[in-house]
Each structure stands twice: as C-alpha cells, then as structure tokens.
C-alpha cells in the first residue's frame, strides 16, 4: 500500500450526492468543493445514476462511501463485492474509499443495517486482519467511519474511541469521524462524547461527517433528515480544532430538501471553525416517533416510477 492516510488531501466542504439533486448539479454546477457517493448505488449501475456520476466526476472530486463491506462481520470478506468496488474506483478515481466499522450480516445474509461490533480483543484482531486484506486488495488505505449505535454488548471491553485508535495503529487505515454519530451513540450508550473525540488519533482523521437526527427522549435515531443540531456543531468545532481542519461532508438522506437548503446547512460549518469555545450542552427538542429508521439507507433504491415516459 503505497499511499498513506496523512497524504490524502483536504477537500474542503462537500455534500452527499443524491438522485434528487442530479439535475440541479448538472444544470447549475454549484460551488460545492466535493461530493461523496454511496458506492453501492453505482457499482452495478449502467443507467442514469452512473451516466450522471460520470459527468459530475469530471467536474468535482469524488469520494466513495460504502455501506456493505461488513468489515466487522465474522463472515469472510466478500471478494465479489470488493472486485466491484475496485472496478468502480478504477473508473471514477475517487480521492479515497470509506465504509463503516460495523457488520451487516453473517451466514452470507445482509440485514442492510450498520450493526454494532462487539469491541474486545477478539474482534479487534479479526477486524484489523480484514482491514489489511482489504487495503492489500484495493491497493489504497481504507477509511472507516464510527457508526451510530443503539446498544453496547456485555462482551465489549474496549471503548469505541480506543478501539478505533488501536485499529489505526495496527493497520494504518484512516478514520471518517462522524460527529453526529458520536453524539447519537454517546446519548444512547451513555458515554462522554468529548472524551471520545479527545481520545482519537487526530492525524488519521481524513474526513468528518455531519448530519441531523431524531431525538426520541430516551434514545436518538440517526435519521439524516434534518438540520444539524447545536450540540453536534459544538462537537464538530472541537474535532475541527483538534484535527486542524479536514474534509467535511453533510449527509441528508431523508426528507431531502432542495439542493440550496443542503448547501446552506453545509456552509454553516464555517461558523464553527474558529475553535472550541462553548460549553458543551446536551439540549435539544424531542420528537417522539417510534417509526423512525436507524441508519437510513433505503434511499439507495431509485424511485423508478416517478420518471416514467408514457
């Protein structure tokens, strides 16, 4: 693996590329620094999504972000999947490839959820072995994101931030720090989000994610369907200061508004780049809705019927 995580560029402020915004981007070429794609949306695409991506990739830096690598599964790696991932990367030349510290299934099944990993020495050993295999296969560093989690296993013995640190030390992989996920997981699993961020290996953080969530009172669901809340901005401010600034991206996947609304929300990040000054207060509106889906990835299915010619 020739490329080092520390050599990856700071791309500035980017947005998740969503089908709802294809036409706007092609017509207006908005002043966004870069786009992140969901890898699985394009790996097998031979239709409009891929056609649009090829045009966008000519004009903007692209990062590939996956949801199905299942690096934390006790199943062996799916090399058919990795082959498709590598082929897409060869074709669109992304700045890097990321996925999540999670598993999506065992016994060759896929729950299509980003499931939490038990954090202990056994899982650390297995996951670091798999990260090395992936990096060797892809011939580039793998960037892994902290997922939003809703439970902690009894068998977990290592705090997540420390697990990420060990993972980086062992494999030289990079980290995608999802600040919203830190907030969501810290509320759901009752840990200190500031201690979490302070414990990370900052020099290996390649990218940050921002997103909105749904607060249900006794738990928070990572819905990506609303603006970023103030406590998350404050955590972003801390992470920005500690990392010295790094590529930052806003995800908006449910109730997706007009492109300009997403862009405006992203640009708010500039207000939080001058240091972590505020007292961190966990305070926000509660909207109880038991039907919310965690880790929303159903936007991966194209709404074919809406674009039919009769």
């Amino acid at each position, binding site marked *: 693996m020739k490329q080092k995580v520390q050599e990856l560029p700071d791309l500035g402020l980017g947005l998740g590329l969503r089908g709802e915004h294809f036409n706007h981007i092609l017509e207006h070429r908005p002043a966004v620094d870069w786009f992140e794609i969901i890898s699985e949306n394009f790996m097998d*695409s031979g239709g409009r999504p891929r056609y649009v991506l090829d045009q966008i990739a000519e004009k903007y830096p692209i990062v590939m972000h996956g949801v199905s690598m299942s690096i934390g599964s*006790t199943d062996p790696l799916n090399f058919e999947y990795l082959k498709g991932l590598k082929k897409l990367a060869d074709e669109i030349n992304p700045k890097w490839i990321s996925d999540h510290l999670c598993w999506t299934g065992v016994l060759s099944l896929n729950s299509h959820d980003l499931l939490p990993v038990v954090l202990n020495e*056994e*899982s650390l050993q297995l996951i670091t072995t798999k990260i090395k295999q992936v990096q060797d296969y892809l011939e580039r560093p793998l960037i892994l994101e902290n997922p939003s989690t809703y439970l902690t296993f009894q068998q977990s013995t290592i705090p997540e931030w420390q697990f990420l640190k060990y993972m980086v030390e062992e494999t030289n992989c990079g980290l995608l720090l999802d600040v919203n996920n830190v907030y969501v997981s810290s509320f759901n699993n009752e840990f200190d989000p500031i201690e979490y961020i302070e414990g990370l290996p900052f020099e290996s953080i390649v990218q940050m994610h921002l997103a909105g969530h749904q607060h249900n009172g006794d738990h928070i669901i990572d819905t990506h369907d609303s603006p970023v809340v103030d406590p998350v901005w404050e955590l972003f401010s801390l992470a920005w200061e500690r990392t010295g600034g790094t590529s930052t991206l806003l995800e908006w996947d449910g109730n997706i508004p007009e492109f300009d609304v997403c862009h405006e929300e992203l640009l708010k990040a500039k207000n939080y780049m001058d240091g972590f000054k505020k007292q961190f207060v966990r305070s926000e509106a509660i909207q109880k809705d038991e039907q919310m889906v965690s880790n929303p990835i159903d936007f*991966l299915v194209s709404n074919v019927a809406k674009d039919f010619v009769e």
Partner: protein
Amino acid sequence: MEIKRDTASEVAAKTFSEIQHWMQHQLMHPQFGGDCETYVKSTSKLSAKQHLQIYQRSYIARLRDCMEAQFPALKHALGRPLFLQFTDLYLLEYPSKSYTLGDLGQSFGKFLVETRPDKDAEVKESWPDFMIELADFEFLVNTSFDEKADENYQKATSKTNEEELELVPVFHLLKHDFPISSYYKAAVNDRNPELPFAEESYSALLRHNYRLGLFEIYPIQYQFLMKFKTTKSISSAKQFLIDQFNIDKKELESHWQQWKAKWLEEGFFIKK
C-alpha cells in the same frame, strides 16, 4: 419456572461469532425473544431489550420501505396491509444475500408463486396470477432502469434507411395474461385502478436517454417486433407477418409506415 441465567464468566465467554449469530437471529426472528441481558447492556434510560428493539424495528421497517419503493403497483393491488404481510413473509423466506438493496425484490414473484393460497387446488383463482405477473414486471422495470447498456448511439429518424434501423439497447417485449402495463401506469400515477380481469396484453418496455418508456402494442406488432429483435431486419420481420399471418403486402406496408412514425417518436429505434 426458573430461568437459567448465564454466570458472569459465561457471559464474557460468548465469542464474537456467537454474538453476531445471536443478534442476526434476533433481527430476523424478533418473535422468538431472547436472553438480551446476556448480550446487551441496559442503560439508565433503556433496558437491554429496548436497546435491541431499536435495531429490530429498523430492520423490518427499512426493508419494507425498499419493497414498497420497488413494487408500488403491487402494493396498490394488494392494499398496503396485505402487501406488508407478504413482504414480511418474503423477507423471512428470502432474506437478502446481496450487497445491494436493488436486488431485494428479486425473488418476490417466485415467492408469490410458491405461496399462492390455491397452490394445490385443481381449479385456480386468477388474482394470484395477476399479482405474480405484476411482481415480475415491476422487478423488470427496476432492473431496466439501471441496466448496463451503451446509450452512446445515434437516434434513428424518418430518413434512416429501414435496414439501418435497430432497437434501442434496453428493449423488452412483454406478453402478459393481464393488462399489466396499463394497470402499472394507472397505479403509479395515482389513478387508483381496480383489479383487472384476465386479458392478454402486449407492451414494450424500453430506455431512451436514460428514461424508461412503457408502450402498449397490438399482438401483431408484438410478433413483428419479436422477429425484428431476433433478425435485426425490417424486411425479414415484414416477410414473417406476410408468411405467418397471411397479411397483404400493401396493407402491411401501410400499417408499417404508421407504426414506424409512432415508434420513431417514442424512441424505439436507433441507427445501426
């Protein structure tokens, strides 16, 4: 009855693999319950079971959402409650093995065949046949939308020589026992169609400029296009109709000119 609890050492000894198999089983079969406390920590706000339930709810809700997006007309035909019942059973029988959600509904038509209520009856009802045809059709629509094909072609015009005509790369000719295309279009355009009676129907599903088009055609046009698709020759397709259906050559030519004009406009043809 006293429930046996694992000791602290037994809890700690659960392997990585055991934990994942347990959790996956809990997601896919939440009705069986499970010894949550052995695996999941409770917090001051939620019990271990409540923590797990967040994942259990999301698992089925997410996949239901995807199935609703992939089968909007079938959902209309069955009604949402029944559609979701079928979906839940389908996901138990055919849990996803693919890295892409695009494949989620791949076996839904097959599942409906296997589970039709009159499967063993000598005389079968017709409505399951309609649902099965519709499911297969909707999955084809989904795959056609993103099918790999080279669309870097020259569109044919009225001036294109007939022997230079070719069908667009994504082109499916369909024959159904029910009016599937008209039902589908009415359902996805919120025209609230009623369940149709059996009636043979023919249609062409195609993609032009990365947009899908769905056009109903006559049986004779279906035969013509089928022959054209295999021979790639308009004159061969015409001769086929003349030979097989005893159609007058002049009459056919007159029809063909009308078909051609309409199909050129609808994006059926490219120039070889």
